């Protein structure tokens, strides 16, 4: 029952992050929405594991947290420099 309440709150937050990602005027708003979406997904996987009585899903949540961080940094680096793996030492920050 308590897991259902937490799941409903997390799903509402995911819907709001989705709307922000669709509306967002700049690309950074969209990246922020994707990042918030990933955080909520980690929580959703963790709570849903308890909700269905199988807490083994926590491994998936842990991996998703790692992938979310790496993905955010990669997309940011792409928007900053236009490429993922060049020599950026000469670019003025």
């Amino acid at each position: 029952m308590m897991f259902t309440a937490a799941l409903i709150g997390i799903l509402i937050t995911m819907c709001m992050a989705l709307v922000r990602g669709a509306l967002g005027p700049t690309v950074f708003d969209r990246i922020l929405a994707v990042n918030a979406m990933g955080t909520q997904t980690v929580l959703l996987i963790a709570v849903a594991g308890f909700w269905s009585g199988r807490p083994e899903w926590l491994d998936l949540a842990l991996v998703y947290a790692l992938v979310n961080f790496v993905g955010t940094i990669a997309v940011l680096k792409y928007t900053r420099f236009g490429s993922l793996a060049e020599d950026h030492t000469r670019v003025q920050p």
Partner: protein
Amino acid sequence: MMIVDAFSWALLVGGALLCVVGGLGLLRLPDVYTRAHAAGINDTLGSWAILLGLMLQAGLGLVTVKLAMIGLFMALVGPVSSHALLKAAYAHGVRVQSNDEETADVD
């Protein structure tokens, strides 16, 4: 057991409410900087409250260790990624809205 359940209820529902508040801020605030400020709520406090509620339900064991690892990782990584995001936004020239001009050009 009743007391543990009560704490778990409070933490789970409070964390979910904090997440909803962060999502509302993400939806309603005017600027990418203020929106990141709102999203920081459910990166840190909302997720920690929900994970602590789950830890109380799990009891001592491997599941609690995994939950603590998720919480530690999110507490380390959330500020880093929002800092990188806002630094990139500032370097791209996204303007900070000040109080003087908020009536001038609200989208």
